[in-house]
């Protein structure tokens, strides 16, 4: 430190005078995020059971290529290796979450112990923060946001299609199944998370010092700020639900769960 001053001795890893269960939130985050990562990776490599009737798993949406009625194109270009379609699209939502300001603070604590908790000793003496490579790349968050917003429209379209069931003749009729509600809830929660993003808050008006005379910007900024205040809750709820949506579609496709039709 400057000026040759003397601080109290640096605490060792995990050392603290805190009496509360400071380790519980990072441990919970570690368990939940690890579980999600393991499940999402497994599901992405399955390349099967990702659709059931009008439902399409969000891990595989948009389905770019394939014979499925959900696919945008019938066949993949010849140069594209034969990989699971999920692997083509999952890097975008994954990148959005990985660079999210909330998740960054959370996984730096949970996975890297930097710090393990507030006022708790750290394992390393060196620190680069997000100033230099590799973590300076976190600044691309707004670019992942652009993709995430596009994905919201796609998932909303999937949810809408989830209300149209084909009969034996192939004609489609409006109906409501549990899966329709699951897909709709998925879009609602992902929208709450994405539209409360710190980068979006900046881009819709946060960069301005004055919003007087700009009522649309002011209202938009207020709405995004409102969602932003609950960003943590939206982040966890949407993470859980997107995984659950995949589980629901997968288990229905495997014949383990039955999709109840309400209407």
């Amino acid at each position: 430190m400057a000026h040759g001053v003397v601080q109290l001795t640096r605490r060792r890893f995990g050392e603290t005078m805190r009496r509360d269960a400071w380790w519980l939130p990072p441990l919970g985050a570690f368990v939940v995020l690890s579980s999600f990562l393991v499940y999402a990776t497994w599901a992405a490599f399955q390349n099967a059971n990702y659709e059931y009737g009008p439902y399409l798993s969000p891990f595989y949406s948009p389905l770019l290529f394939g014979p499925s009625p959900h696919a945008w194109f019938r066949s993949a270009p010849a140069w594209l290796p034969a990989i699971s379609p999920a692997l083509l699209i999952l890097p975008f939502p994954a990148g959005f979450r990985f660079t999210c300001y909330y998740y960054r603070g959370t996984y730096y604590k949970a996975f890297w112990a930097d710090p393990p908790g507030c006022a708790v000793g750290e394992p390393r003496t060196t620190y680069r923060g997000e100033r230099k490579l590799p973590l300076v790349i976190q600044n691309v968050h707004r670019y992942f946001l652009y993709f995430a917003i596009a994905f919201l429209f796609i998932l909303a379209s999937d949810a809408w299609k989830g209300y149209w069931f084909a009969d034996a003749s192939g004609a489609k009729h409006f109906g409501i199944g549990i899966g329709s509600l699951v897909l709709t809830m998925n879009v609602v929660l992902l929208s709450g998370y994405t539209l409360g993003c710190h980068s979006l808050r900046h881009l819709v008006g946060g960069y301005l010092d004055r919003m007087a005379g700009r009522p649309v910007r002011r209202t938009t900024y207020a709405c995004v700020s409102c969602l932003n205040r609950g960003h943590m809750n939206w982040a966890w709820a949407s993470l859980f639900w997107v995984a659950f949506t995949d589980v629901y579609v997968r288990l229905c496709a495997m014949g383990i769960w039955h999709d109840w039709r309400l209407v």
Partner: protein
Amino acid sequence: MTAPASAPGAVDAYTAAQAVQDASVGHGARSFRLWRGADGSGAFTDYTTEVNEGMVVLDAVQQIQAEQANDLAVRWNCKAGKCGSCSAEINGKPKLMCMTRLDDLPADEPVTVEPMRAFPHVRDLVTDVSWNFRVKPRIQPFTPRAPDAPDGTWRIDQRDVERVQEFRKCIECFLCQDVCHVLRDHHLHDEFIGPRFLVYAAALEMHPLDVADRRSELKEDFGIGYCNITKCCTKVCPEHITITDNAIIPLKERVVDRHFDPLGALVRLVRGPRKP
């Protein structure tokens, strides 16, 4: 005192009942472990003192100072949570001693009180926070635009200025600096100005009248990239300023605008710079 012979055990019952009542309103003896020492060295010393309902940690520390440890060094001033002088670490958490009620702390274990760890230790519970006062002048000061009216006055929409009003609540207790691991554990005082001064910079940078551009300084000189958004500063702020979400992240985004967004730079090149 001896118990009346006619009612053996009655005093014990009374005493027990009194003790229960005292405990319920916070009366009784409490144990404290205070850091004693100078210039970075020292150790915890145990004290016991009588406490009453409504007492805060600073009351107990002053009582110990008056009755048992006249040479105990402790800094305090307003006792109302507004001067920011009595910052310390209570049971391991950065807090104001004058705003931490004893009945909010576990009664069955000693209350530990230590000096802040991000700053040089002077003596006992006192640290030298003067580094903070040397940081502040490095930040480009308030630079208003030309006056809006011929009489030299400005017009500001109240809603525009409300955003920075939150930052003006800061009492400069430096608890946010203390808990920030960049300063506390990594001692990067020469490269990082800490959450307190990022809030100060945000109050200037987002002010509707200010026209100075501090983004390059924030990146290069003030080390905003060191902040890894742990939100510890927000959690300890006694004024409940949303430091991370409302000050630091918006500043990080402004730095991204200036230094890390080629697409945005291209748009600005084509459309011209954004109006502030």
